[in-house]
């Protein structure tokens, strides 16, 4: 017995707002899905970090312990640990279940902007360094410090064997651990966000000249350029959709812009609100998008909620 072939899905872009919630955290600095997409974290300016369930938007836990506003967070793959970084120059590792602070890593000279956690916590900071801390070893010194940047590091992503950093000095640096190489791509204007593509062939970087550029990883050539949004002063997020079909970016005009990756044309402009959309995060597998604007977090999906149960998610 063979099942009928599923109908080919059109390009999926999250265009329907499923729900909005008020995070009560003051302005939300970052929203991040966890590794499997069932939960998300919101980092607030009120020094707290909140864990929410992604399906309904219910608050699960609040983690407080930072001295200043929490700027970024990430969770480990087994969902047992969360790491968060804050303007108080420290990185805190939390135990998810108990909410206790497992470790507090200090060492950055400036505000830490971004964190990524596999088994190594790598925050990047305004002092221009990326410090890699080993989570298992309990040492307080970082394993390695990457300080090639000449100005602050605004964004950081980690893939299987690569570290991608974007710096305010206008350069995207990709550290290849397997090959033992550092590739520096010069983009001239300060970079606000970098991310890998899902297939691992390209990197996307957004910079303060209101441009997103898709660069080929191996050669450094530009594969696509996306314009139309406004990013002139703020550090806003950008991301690729889960299947690398679209490029999404926050904008200072209160919209989230969504371009088709291949063509570069603007597919969607999500009206999030009136203020600057600070952060966004794409679900790792499904077509869902989280956006954060001021104190509110919104979840957008491909289709409205009522029909969710019927569609087969491939």
């Amino acid at each position, binding site marked *: 017995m063979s099942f009928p072939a599923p109908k080919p899905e059109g390009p999926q872009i999250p265009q329907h707002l499923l729900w909005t919630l008020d995070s009560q955290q003051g302005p939300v600095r970052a929203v991040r899905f966890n590794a499997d997409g069932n939960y998300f974290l919101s980092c607030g300016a009120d020094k707290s970090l909140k864990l929410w369930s992604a399906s309904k938007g219910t608050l699960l836990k609040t983690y407080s312990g930072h001295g200043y506003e929490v700027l970024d967070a990430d969770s480990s793959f087994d969902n047992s640990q969360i790491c968060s970084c804050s303007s108080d120059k420290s990185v805190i590792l939390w135990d998810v279940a108990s909410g206790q602070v497992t470790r507090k890593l200090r060492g950055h*000279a400036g505000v830490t902007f971004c964190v990524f956690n596999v088994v190594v916590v790598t925050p990047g900071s305004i002092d221009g360094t990326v410090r890699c801390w080993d989570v298992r070893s309990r040492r307080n010194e970082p394993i390695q410090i990457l300080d090639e940047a000449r100005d602050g590091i605004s964004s950081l992503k980690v893939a299987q064997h690569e570290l991608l950093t974007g710096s305010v000095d206008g350069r995207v640096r990709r550290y290849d651990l397997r090959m033992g190489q550092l590739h520096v791509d010069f983009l001239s204007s300060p970079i606000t966000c970098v991310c890998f593509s899902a297939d691992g062939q390209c990197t996307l970087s957004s910079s303060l000249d209101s441009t997103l550029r898709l660069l080929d990883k191996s050669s450094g050539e530009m594969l696509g350029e996306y314009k139309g949004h406004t990013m002139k002063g703020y550090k806003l997020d950008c991301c690729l959709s889960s299947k690398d079909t679209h490029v999404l970016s926050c904008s200072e005009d209160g919209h989230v812009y969504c371009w088709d990756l291949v063509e570069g044309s603007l597919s969607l402009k999500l009206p999030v609100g009136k203020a600057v959309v600070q952060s966004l995060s794409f679900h790792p597998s499904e077509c869902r998008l989280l956006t954060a604007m001021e104190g509110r977090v919104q979840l957008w999906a491909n289709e409205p909620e009522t029909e969710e149960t019927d569609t087969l998610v491939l």
Partner: protein
Amino acid sequence: NMAADSDKEGTDFVSFGTPLEPLDEDEPLKKPVPIYEQTVKDEKGRYQRFHGAFTGGFSAGYFNTVGSKEGWSPATFKSSRESKAENQKARGPEDFMDEEDFGEHGIAPSEITRSAEFQSGHKDAATAKARAVNAQSSLIPGDTLLEEIIAPAESSIGVELLKTMGWREGQGIGPRVKRKPKKQRPEEGPRVYGCSRPPAGSESSEEDDGEFAPQNVTFAPKDVTPFDFTPHLGLQGLGYRGLDPGLALGQSAEHINLFDPQLDIKTKLFGGKQKHTRHRGVAGQGFGVGAMEDEDEDIYQRDSMSKYDIEIKDEEPGDGLFGWTALRNSNKDASYIGKILEGFTLAQKTVIFPPPRLPRDYRPVRRFNPGTFVSHVSGVSPALAQPQTGGRHQLDSGQRRALIGEEALQGPSSVMDLLRPEDRERLRNIRHSRHGSSSSSRSSSSSLPPKKESGQTAAQTFKPFENNPEKQERYEQYLNCLKQGDTDALEESLDSEMTEWERSREREEFVRASILYRPSSSFLSSRFTRSKQQDDDDTVEVNRDEERDLDDKQTAVKMKMFGQLTRETFEWHPDKVLCKRFNVPDPFPGTSVVGLPKVKRDKFSVFNFLIVPESKETSGNGYFCLHWWAEIQIPRDETKHEIESTRTRRDEILT
């Protein structure tokens, strides 16, 4: 000194405490006291048991029982059937206590205390507690009213003792003194016509002599006047007396009319002296007082007992301030009564300071004439006499110097004087050459300085061996050979006269100096960058290599030609642990270098100069470099990374 006294070893040392027992290695080590032996025993050897609080509490007897070693019945057992009568006597709780309970920490400590009648003011803790407890249960909890109202008229034991020894109230305490017979007093006060008391002294002295004839009669000393040392805590000043409540609350004989503007109410209320006793009404001699009589101050005034004597006694000699050791108002100047503050007295000697001497042309009037005032003021240099243009902020140091009247500093006025003539020449040449040259020559000279010249300039700017000109020459020779790539640079530049050790020392020094004192162009280029505007002619030459790269890249970005133009690739060494964590094989297992090797750092630190150029002779001199690394002081940065990278440098040099 300690070393010098080493021969007198035993005599100078002082030992404190008990020394440990000398440990014999052969003997088995003594085990420490085992747990079951760590017990507390009282003076009789019985095991102590502590129930509840650590001190105090009942002893648990003999293994928690009443018995003893012999058994539960005491050794001496007396049947009480026969001796019932004896049991009738009251047995207080003390009969059931043992000596431990009577001890210091027991429940009924027996100690010697004072009994109630011998207690002085401080009640002991027990009675105080009893009173407090009673106070709680009385009608008004916490208040001991009845006790305070009805207090037994008891005098303290000290008073009782004194009384038995012959003291009376009002007398002083101390050995008895003799009282001298009174001398004749000088006449005082107005002359009195009519009956008056005989001058107290002249006649009575004779009589007194008769009465107090025996010389060996002693009297009790005078009592000490208690002086109230109330500190002056207020902020009003000495001699301030507040509102007199007696006057303010209407107890005075006069009615205080607040609405009368004439009355100076303040002085009345504050007890100050009044100029006029009565403003209104008829008063004085015309009313109520006879013509021949003096006016009384106030016929309705109330008397106070202090005006009358209690005892019939002669006035004692001296004033009443017995025991008062401070100044006394000996000089009873009537005009000062009431004006002298308490505790103060008129000075014996008044010192009047002369008025200050004024300068000859001092005028107490200030005339402000901006043009001419300067000349009037003496002591100002004529430089100041000219009116200043632009105000005081436009002065330069020379003008200021003139204003203050300072001397100019001795010494060269310009830095150029300090330089030697050849240096001056060189600087001038450089300046001229820079003026004349075009940008291309500038850039070429920056990146590849001509060899000899650089060697010369380097040597001239950094002369490590200035004191020893021969050495300096050798060093320059060495540098030149280095530049030309000679591997035997060291050997050639050595002096054959020196000993082997000196030669090796010189080798080391040359290597060090060559690394540290790099030629000025690249030395400074990494520290400075060309400014955007040409401010000065005396700017330092700048390396434009970096800038050119940047411009290229930017143009590439503008043209959107990403790729080779915008990408740079470096060899980067990840840390071993990092590779492990990422589950990736270490790409460079051999080297222990971490980070970017052989890349010029942009950090403006000493490490810019410590990068060894890729040349062969350094590998041969690796040994000396290692020595140097150990010796030089690296300025500590906050991050540990700097220290790590020095390690990498060292490793890299060795490999």
